[in-house]
């Protein structure tokens, strides 16, 4: 068996080669001052705006505030528009369980979206969470038993249900905007925005499920569960247009 030399032997054998890349990265005092002046103008010398104050909060606080914003959105919409009929007893417990799980997934999405650069980046795990945030509503929409309350449908298809998509989009977009406000990057990478859109879509789905009495899987799939995907498509489009603009 060939004996592998220890690491120090490898490292010292490479001393000459690796020293070829010793970059001369010295900055003159003037250059150092100029770079720092530019930096200070955006940081310590700047009167912080409201957004600066929000994005400079610690990461757990930013995530908690983002999730609270989503919960407030669901609560306000439910209070102003009312909840679906027959929501009590066993159905209420079932709904509570599902909405709590959705809130957990919103928290996970916002954690991906707002993860600080001082933290190890999540890589594939982040994409798994984003995919779950976008796809879980679709899966839930296909299981009508979860959403049954035993009460007869208060509305028939088309009876005010055409408002579901615009309402969902408005709720989802506002929740996505809440997550965006807490971003530390001026131009966040697409995965951060997709995670925010996923959280927005989940919030819209929970809000619509609490309000709309429909159990038709097609309606649930297209107008309730599809909000996250629509927001994700809009986010992707905006990022592509911005990148093309930057390259032009």
């Amino acid at each position, binding site marked *: 068996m060939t004996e*592998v030399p220890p690491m120090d032997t490898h490292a010292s054998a*490479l001393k000459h080669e690796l020293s070829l890349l010793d*970059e001369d990265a010295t900055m003159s005092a003037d250059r150092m001052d100029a770079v720092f002046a530019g930096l*200070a103008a955006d940081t310590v010398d700047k009167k912080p705006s409201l957004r600066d104050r929000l994005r*400079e909060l610690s990461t757990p606080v930013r995530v908690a505030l983002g999730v609270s914003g989503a919960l407030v959105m669901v609560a306000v919409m439910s209070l102003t528009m009312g909840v679906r009929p027959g929501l009590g007893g066993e159905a209420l417990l079932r709904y509570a369980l599902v909405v709590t799980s959705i809130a957990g997934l919103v928290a996970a999405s916002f954690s991906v979206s707002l993860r*600080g650069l*001082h933290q190890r980046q999540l890589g594939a795990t982040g994409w798994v969470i984003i995919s779950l945030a976008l796809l879980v509503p679709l899966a839930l929409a296909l299981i009508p038993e979860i959403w049954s309350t035993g009460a007869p449908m208060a509305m028939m298809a088309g009876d005010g249900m055409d408002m579901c998509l615009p309402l969902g989009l408005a709720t989802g977009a506002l929740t996505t905007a809440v997550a965006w406000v807490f971003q530390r990057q001026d131009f966040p990478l697409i995965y951060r925005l997709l995670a925010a859109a996923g959280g927005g879509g989940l919030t819209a789905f929970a809000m619509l499920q609490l309000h709309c009495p429909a159990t038709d899987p097609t309606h649930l799939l297209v107008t309730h569960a599809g909000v996250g995907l629509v927001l994700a498509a809009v986010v992707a489009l905006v990022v592509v247009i911005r990148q093309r603009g930057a390259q032009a």
Partner: protein
Amino acid sequence: MSEPTDQELMRRYVERGDRAAFQALFARYAGKLKGMFMRHTGDHAVSEDMVQQTFLHFHRARKDFSLDREVRPWLYTIALNVRREYFRRRGRKKEVQLEPIVHGEPTVAPSTTTRSDRLVRRALANLTEQQREVILLHWYEGMSFPEIASTVGASLSAVKVRAHRGYEKLRSQLSESV
């Protein structure tokens, strides 16, 4: 009087928003960070921009800093993530420039252009990102393995394995090239 430690400067900066402490930390690390970015981009302007971005995020994340931590690994974690995000914005192009050895012009002009430099750059570019990161921090930044582990968010043993494999691979590639 002795120089204040990183921790002392960081405490003054985080607790009191002390501008002089922020500037002192910048003066202490800006050149080193620029050197690290230069090894990845070969471009002075881009490297200085990355230094600025690193300290911008350092400032925005200061409330996430726990005062009993070491400053350097924390700062370098931000720097490595700034670099990653920069390359992701550019569409996942190779992080270490792979200039042709015989002909053609590099996309980004390296600071030095001898054939040997390019062989070393090419050998580094052929390492996995994790191996390259560990070797650059160990060799050029003079970080200890525990510091590197804290910087890249991996276990000490994982970092040692990456370094060992990386150095081994570099040595074998460079001995083949010479």
